[in-house]
């Protein structure tokens, strides 16, 4: 959810001011209560401000946890707009940090009180991972928009690459005369094929499907076959992160220039097409890395939140029983 851009900030500014004001008010009451005796004494979690902050923080935490079933269980029965849920999740979640730190008197010493300290650390980790996710969600989509015009569905990248790999092999085999073109096989004139390629119009760039002339046999293209075997096919079929020469844009340009010099110009469009496929592959690599960054934090955030919620229930039970 974008927050700090020109378009969305006015919507979030009110929430931001509310959280800041509520935090300052909470700290103010806490300080006044702590100094009420003339000298500073940490208000306990059972003191009036401590209990109020704990109760509010606990209720907010429960509300924050509702986002999970709301997304996973109640997909067909959504209460309120998603944007409102996310906004409240974000800002009320941030508010829990000062409230619960004050409630717990900043007790981070595990040896002193294990459950209270673990809750404190979990709270910081949950809010920290949430803030990290917010920052990532504000930055990564922009990076992807600008640098990944070939972006596709992340889970389908291996499937798409298999398609690209088959396309590349088909083109090379046709050019090298190993396999007949589909037109030749059908006894037709040279036909058109649909290809996915990156195009830019003004500032907008993206993956488009274009009609291209089908490749045709070009004598003397054996070096292209060898190039495909040694570089292109291994690169298109390699797992993400494998260090290959075509993984470097600069190295890729040099390699494709070299192979162009070795074959007739009539086969150059096929080389350009192979270069385009490898470029898309590089973007897929970057996309997968960004995708993991964009989604891994959520797993950590949710897992920590679940632990925090469970332990918070235990803490409430213990506190109510033995305070």
């Amino acid at each position, binding site marked *: 959810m974008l927050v700090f851009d020109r378009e969305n900030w006015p919507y979030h500014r009110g929430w931001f001011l509310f959280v800041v004001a509520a935090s300052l008010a909470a700290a103010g009451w806490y300080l006044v209560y702590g100094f009420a005796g003339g000298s500073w004494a940490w208000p*306990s979690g059972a003191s009036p401000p401590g209990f109020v902050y704990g109760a509010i923080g606990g209720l907010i935490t429960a509300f924050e946890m509702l986002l999970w079933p709301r997304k996973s269980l109640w997909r067909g029965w959504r209460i309120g707009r998603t944007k409102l849920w996310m906004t409240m999740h974000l800002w009320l979640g941030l508010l829990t940090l000062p409230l619960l730190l004050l409630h717990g008197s900043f007790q981070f010493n595990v040896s002193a009180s294990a459950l209270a300290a673990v809750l404190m650390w979990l709270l910081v980790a949950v809010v920290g991972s949430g803030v990290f996710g917010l920052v990532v969600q504000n930055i990564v989509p922009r990076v992807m928009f600008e640098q990944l015009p070939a972006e596709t569905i992340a*889970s389908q990248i291996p*499937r798409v690459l298999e398609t690209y790999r088959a396309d590349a092999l088909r083109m090379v085999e046709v050019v090298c005369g190993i396999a007949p073109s589909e*037109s030749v096989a059908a006894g037709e004139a040279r*036909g058109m094929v649909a290809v996915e390629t990156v195009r830019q119009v003004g500032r907008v760039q993206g993956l488009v499907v274009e009609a291209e002339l089908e490749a045709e046999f070009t004598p003397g293209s054996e070096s292209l076959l060898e190039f495909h075997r040694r570089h292109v096919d291994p690169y298109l079929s390699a797992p993400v992160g494998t260090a290959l020469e075509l993984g470097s844009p600069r190295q890729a340009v040099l390699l494709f220039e070299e192979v162009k010099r070795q074959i007739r110009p009539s086969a150059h469009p096929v080389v350009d097409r192979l270069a385009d496929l490898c470029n898309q592959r590089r973007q897929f690599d970057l996309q997968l890395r960004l995708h993991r960054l964009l989604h891994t934090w959520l797993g*950590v955030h949710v897992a920590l939140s679940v632990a925090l919620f469970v332990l918070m229930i235990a803490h409430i039970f213990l506190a109510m029983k033995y305070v």
Partner: protein
Amino acid sequence: MSDTSKIRRSRIDLGYHKRGDALGRWRGRLVLFALTAAGLWLLLAPSSGQGKGANLRLFQHASLASKGPLTRAHAAWDNQCEACHTPFQGINTSRWSPSLNRASTAGDQNCQTCHAGPAHHPNQIASEVPSCAECHRDHRGRDFRLAATPDAGCTGCHADLGRHRNPSANSAAIANVTAFDAEHHPAFTLPASLAGKHPGRIKFSHKRHLTPGLVLEQGGAPFTRANLAAADRTRYGGPAGREADPVQLTCASCHRLDDATDATPRFANQIPRLPGEAMLPVSYESSCRACHPLAFDRNAPTVEARHGQEPAALVEEINRFYKAQALEEKPDLLNRFVPPQPQPGRSAAELDTVRDRVEAKTLMAVRRFFGSAVSEADRQGAGLPLSRGGCVECHELSSTPGPLTSLAAARNLALEPVAIRSLWYENARFNHASHRAVECASCHAGVEQAADQSKPHMPGIESCTTCHAPAASPGGRSTGGAGFDCVECHRYHATDVAAHGLGSPLRKPVAALSIEQFLSGAPPARP
């Protein structure tokens, strides 16, 4: 066209969103792990710690409770909840937050194993007496002062004491207290027995004694270091100076801090005390004798009458001295036979002469001690020292002596009893040593100008609230800042002694424990 965009799009599995991806599966496993880890910790932790008590059940382990460390004095029981929580539940009866348990005061017995104490007040209402933990809330850190209880524990009753004391009790009303300032705290008062008069019954001028040379009269001869014995010159005349320098007394010349080395009270209403906490009552021997020796014979300046005896005893003492002196002058008097009754024809003129002279000297000394007029010629004729008033310079006679014409009349004299107090305000504590940096007159205002002892110069509440109040800077002048809690001056558990005593340190435990019992936090069962 052998391939179309539609075919291209079909290369993406259109039902991909119905199947989870690797990240989703990883997230699910992570959540399951977190859930399991948290659950296992809660379930297993209670059986993994040391020092479990018989009452420990699930969720009762010390390491799980958000308990906070005990104060240093109780740290041995940090993980032994039953040392105080018997049964295992909250022991703070006044908590305001909701609880699943009804708090118990049963744990008070455990506290009183070591901290026995008297009831706070005979007129207290039993049902309103709080549990120990209500005021002394532990689990607030090693350095937390359990005795520094919040004022609310006191003002809960003392803000409206009429509703919180036994209505059937017949005792004087006590003013309400809500805070420590002149408006919300009653004025300091002396005990009713001291109202309106100085109990010491000593004639004493602080003004004279704090004046250089101790002389107020214009042109009067100053009292100098030369008038002091060499051993007293440092104490009363300063560490250095010439013999002709006038003596300059300070408060500390006479008023000494009690070092509390003697556990046995030596004075009336002397309190259990800490070293330096109280001032020793001024006594003749410690503070007056150096300048006011009870010498009565110029020819025997080192001979002094014993202080603190009744006039009749003093007469006898002086009389014995002059008899001894007469015998010393004429030892053969001892060899004279003195018939039990006058015998006809035998003259006792010489003996009578000696007896008369001894009685005359005795009478002269006694008259000087008790304020009867003694002419200068008689004084010199009797060989008496320069007079500074004798007994009646400081003491008051119970009745007007009239002319002391015989020793028999002197023997019938009586002095007003003296009661120099160790303690003036009996309902609060005060530590002089803690306030040693402050001039005495800052609190005992006006004492330097007091020409008599018509009233005790005890400070009022305004002397205290100058410092013991919230910090403020009225007109740029800093005031307040020192503690002003009730427990700064008052004790709850020691009201059976004046000034509330030292509290717990003076109390014997209900039951002495072995070291093993003490460390285990398991006091012996009581009937």
